[in-house]
């Protein structure tokens, strides 16, 4: 049994996937658009123009899998109440990841040594997703 984070990008999932491919070396394992689905949502559920948006996608980041979707429309964009913790193997890897994620986003806490980590920092990426980059001690 496994638990995976599922993120909703309100129409920017394609852009997000391309960004995570470049920033984190993410690999697309699966991608299904609404207009390719054997069971499209009932009429009225999807926002107009949403037919070619991403219904479900799975990307691999390092050893982990993350799910993404555009959701059914741009009704309630944004992220709140959670973050994604990304564990790097070395301080150098953390630096690279942190820089890439914060590019176009916002550095919340620059990488630094803490009592629990060789290196720890927080950044919000350009899509509003909060990332915690950590190299555990």
């Amino acid at each position, binding site marked *: *049994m*496994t*638990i995976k984070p599922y993120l*909703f990008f309100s129409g920017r999932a394609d852009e997000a996937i391309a960004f995570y491919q470049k920033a984190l070396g993410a690999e697309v394992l699966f991608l299904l658009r609404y207009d390719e*689905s054997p069971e499209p949502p009932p009429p009225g559920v999807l926002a107009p123009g949403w037919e070619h948006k991403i219904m479900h996608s799975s990307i691999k980041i390092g*050893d*982990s899998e993350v799910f993404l979707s555009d959701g059914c429309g741009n009704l309630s964009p944004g992220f709140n109440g959670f*973050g994604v*913790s990304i*564990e790097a193997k070395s301080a150098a890897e953390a630096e690279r990841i942190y820089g890439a994620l914060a590019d176009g986003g916002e550095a919340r806490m620059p990488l630094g040594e803490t009592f629990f980590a060789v290196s720890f920092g927080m950044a919000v990426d350009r899509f509003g997703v909060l990332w915690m980059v950590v190299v555990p001690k």
Partner: protein
Amino acid sequence: MTVQPYLVFDGRAEEAAAFYEQAIGAQIQMLMRYKDSPLAPPVDMMPPGWNAKVMHMALKIGDSIVFGSDGDGAESGGFKGFSLSYGAKTPEEAERVFAALADGGETQMRLTKTFFSPAFGILTDRFGVPWMVVVPQ
């Protein structure tokens, strides 16, 4: 490199940990309160009594780790833009987990057979955490 979800419970982290222990067999691997941390914010920066709140915790749920915190005492405003995807091994496990998580919460979509899964459902638990329970095909 691994990626894990990190949830902010606004003061209910301990209650949430106990609930996930009982509901889905979570194990508390680590739990640190602000008062036990060498890196806690000054007491007058947090609401009264927040010193005993959870600064960081790690829950093992099946093969996965989920991190949690009470946050810094500022209302974070609930969970938005994401969901936790619980991959169950069998429809029976999915039924059990769905019912346990939905107890005291809200069911958005009952477990149903879909083109991509023998059992898939959507709920929000009593803490407002959105879940998708799925048996992968």
